[in-house]
C-alpha cells in the first residue's frame, strides 16, 4: 500500500515540475487535471488503509471539481480569449524555477523534521505533509513568475492542491468545511478567469459576461 502512495508522490511532484516549466496553456490545464486526479487516488488509497469514509468523499469531490469542472471552465474561457501559449517569465527562467523548487522541498523537509516531531507522525504521513507544503510553495512561485493571469490561476490552483495533500496527511477537516472550501474556490476561480478575460477583451464584452455571471450565482 505504502509503495503505491510513494509512486503517486513521485507523479505529483512530476506534474508540479511540469506546471512550473510548460508554456502551452492547454497542456497546463491537462497537467493540472492529472495532478488533481493523482491526489484523489492518494485519498482513495488512504481510505482503504484507514477506512475513513470522509477520504472517499474528498476523492470524489476532488475529481468532480478539480479534475473535471475547473479545467473545463478554464478551457472555455481560453477559447474565448484566443490565447494559446504563455511564454513570458519574470524573475526566474524555467530551469531556475526548478532549482528553487527543489530547494524549497529541502527547506520544508528540514524545518518539518523538527516541528512535526511534536505530533508524532510516521514517515509516510511526514512525507505527505512535506510534499503538500512544497507544492503549495511552488504554486506561489508560479503566481510570481508568470505574467498571464490565466497561468497565475493555475498556480493558485496548484497551491490549493498542495494544501489538500497536506490536509490528507496531517488531519482531515470536517467534510462540510471541505465542501464549503471547494465551493468557495470554484466561485473564486470563475471570477478570476472572467476578470482575466476582461483584461484581454473590450470592456463592453467583459461587462456583459460579468453581468450574466453574478445573476447566475445569485439565483
Amino acid at each position, binding site marked *: 500500500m505504502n509503495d503505491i502512495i510513494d509512486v503517486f508522490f513521485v507523479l505529483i511532484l512530476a506534474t508540479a515540475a511540469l506546471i512550473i516549466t510548460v508554456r502551452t496553456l492547454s497542456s497546463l490545464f491537462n497537467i493540472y487535471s492529472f495532478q488533481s486526479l493523482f491526489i484523489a487516488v492518494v485519498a482513495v488509497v488512504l481510505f482503504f488503509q484507514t477506512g475513513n469514509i470522509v477520504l472517499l468523499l474528498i476523492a470524489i469531490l476532488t475529481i468532480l471539481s478539480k479534475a473535471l469542472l475547473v479545467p473545463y471552465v478554464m478551457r472555455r474561457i481560453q477559447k474565448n480569449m484566443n490565447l494559446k501559449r504563455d511564454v513570458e517569465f519574470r524573475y526566474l527562467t524555467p530551469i531556475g524555477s526548478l532549482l528553487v523548487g527543489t530547494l524549497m522541498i529541502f527547506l520544508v523537509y528540514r524545518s518539518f523534521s523538527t516541528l512535526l516531531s511534536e505530533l508524532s507522525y510516521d514517515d509516510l504521513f511526514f512525507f505527505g505533509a512535506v510534499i503538500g507544503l512544497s507544492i503549495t510553495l511552488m504554486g506561489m512561485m508560479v503566481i510570481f513568475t508568470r505574467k498571464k493571469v490565466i497561468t497565475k490561476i493555475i498556480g493558485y490552483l496548484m497551491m490549493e492542491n498542495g494544501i489538500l495533500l497536506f490536509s490528507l496527511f496531517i488531519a482531515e477537516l470536517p467534510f462540510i*468545511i471541505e465542501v464549503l472550501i471547494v465551493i468557495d474556490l470554484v466561485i473564486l476561480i470563475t471570477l*478570476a478567469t472572467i476578470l482575466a478575460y476582461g483584461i484581454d477583451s473590450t470592456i463592453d464584452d467583459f461587462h456583459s459576461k460579468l*453581468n450574466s455571471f453574478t445573476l447566475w450565482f445569485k439565483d
Partner: protein
Amino acid sequence: MLLAYLLTGIVVLILMLIRFPESEKRANYLNSLSIVHTSAYLAITITALITISLPSYFANRYFFMDSFALYETLIACSVFFLSSFYSRGYVRRLMQSGEIEVRELRVFYAAYNLLLTVVVFSFYCNNLALFWILLELTTVLSAILIVTLNAKENIVAALKYLFTASTAMLFSVIGLILLFAMTKNNTGDGNLNWDILQQQGNALPPTLFTFAFIFIFIGFAAKAGIVPFHTWLPQAHAKAPSVISVLLSSVLLNVGIYGILRLYAIAHLNPSWHTISIILIVFGCLTVAVAAFSMLPRGNLKKLIAFSSIEHMGFILLGIGIGTPLILFWVLFHTLAHALVKTLLFFSAGILHEQYHSNMFEDMRDIIKLQPLASWGLLLGCLAITGLPLFPVFISKLNILMQIAAYSLPLLCVILLLFLLVAGAFTTILIRTFMQKADHEYESYPAAMSMKVPLAVLIIGIFVMGVFFPTGLQNLLNNIVFSLGF
C-alpha cells in the same frame, strides 16, 4: 436572532429581482432596498445588544454572539447604513456620467447587500474554518464591487486584490489544519471553534502553535492590509467607487483585525505568547513605517487616504502586540474612531471626485467655494485622522502611545517620528489644495441631499465622540477585553 439577519438578507435579494424598465426608477428602487436592508441590520444589532445575554450560541455552536462580535457588527452596520444613503446620490451621478451602466446596477447592489450579510455572519461565526470561508467570500464580493466601474484599471486592481488576498489566505488554511491537528492530538477530537480553542490555548504545543499562528496570520494580515501583504490595498481603494472604498477601508480591514485579535486571545494563554507578541509588534512597526514613508509623495487623494488606512492598521496591530488590557481597550475604541473618520474622508473624496473628475490634488481648485461641505469634511477628516485633540482618534492614540511608552521608550520615539511624517504629509497637501486658485470657471457640481446628509451626520458624530465618552460604550469595551481573557 441570526435567523432575522439571514431572512432579511434573503428577502432583500429576492426583491431585487423585480425589474423596472426606467433606469432612474430602477436605481432608486434598488437603493431603497439597500437602505431597508442596512437599517434592518442596524436595528437587529441594537436589539441584540440590549436584549440578548452574552455569549449565546446558535446552530450547533457554529455561530455565536458575544460582545466583541456585536461591537464589530455595530461598527460595520453603521458604516453600511450611512453609505447606503450616500450611494443613492452617488450611484445616480455615476450613471449620468457613464461610469457605471444601468444593467450593472443589479450586480452592484446585489454584491453590496450580500457583502453586508457575509460580513455580519463572519463576525458571528464561532468556527475558525467557517470564518476563513466567509472572509474569502468578502474578497470575491468586493472584487465584484470594484469592477462594476467602467474602466480597465479597475479590473487590474480587482485581480491584484483577488490574487494577493486569496494566495495569502491559502497559507491560513495550512495554519488551520495544523491547529486542527493539535486539538485532535490533545483531546482526540479536532475542533476549530473559537471558544474551545480559547479553553485549550494553554495546552497546545508552543513551537507548533507559533508556526500555525504565523501561517494563519499571513492570510488575515493580507485582508487587514498589513505590510508586506498590503500591495493590493492602495490601488483597490483608489480605483473603487468611493462608496466601496468606504466599505473596504472601514469594514473589511476590521474583519482582518478581528480575526487577528481573536487568534491573539488564544495565543495569550499559550507559552509562546512572548514570541508572537514580538512578531506582531515588528509587523505593526513595519506597517506604520512603510505607510508613513509612502504618504509624503502622494498626489492622489484616495491613495493618500488608503495609505493612512494601512498606517492605522499597523498602529492597531502594534497595540495588539503589546497586549495589556488597557491598550486593548483603546485599540478597540481606535477601530471605531478610525472607521468613522475614514468614512467621512472617503465620502468627501467621492464628492470632490465628482466635482473635478479626478482624484489628483493638483486638479482641485477653489475647493472651499465649489464644495464647501466636502472640503470641510476633508479638512476635519484629515485633522481628525492625524489625531488632533477634540477628535476621537486623539483620545485613543494618546492612550495607546502612553502604553507604548510604558512598554519601550525607543519604540515610542520611532512611532512619534513616523506620525510626524504622516502629519507632515497631510498638512502639506491640505495647504497646497486649499490655496489653489481656479484658472478658469468651474461649474459647481450640486451634490445630492442624500450625499450631504450622511457627511454632515458624520462630522457632528465625530465631534460628539471626541468630547463625550458614554458609559455604555465603556462597559461594552471593558466587557470585550474581559471576555477575550486579558
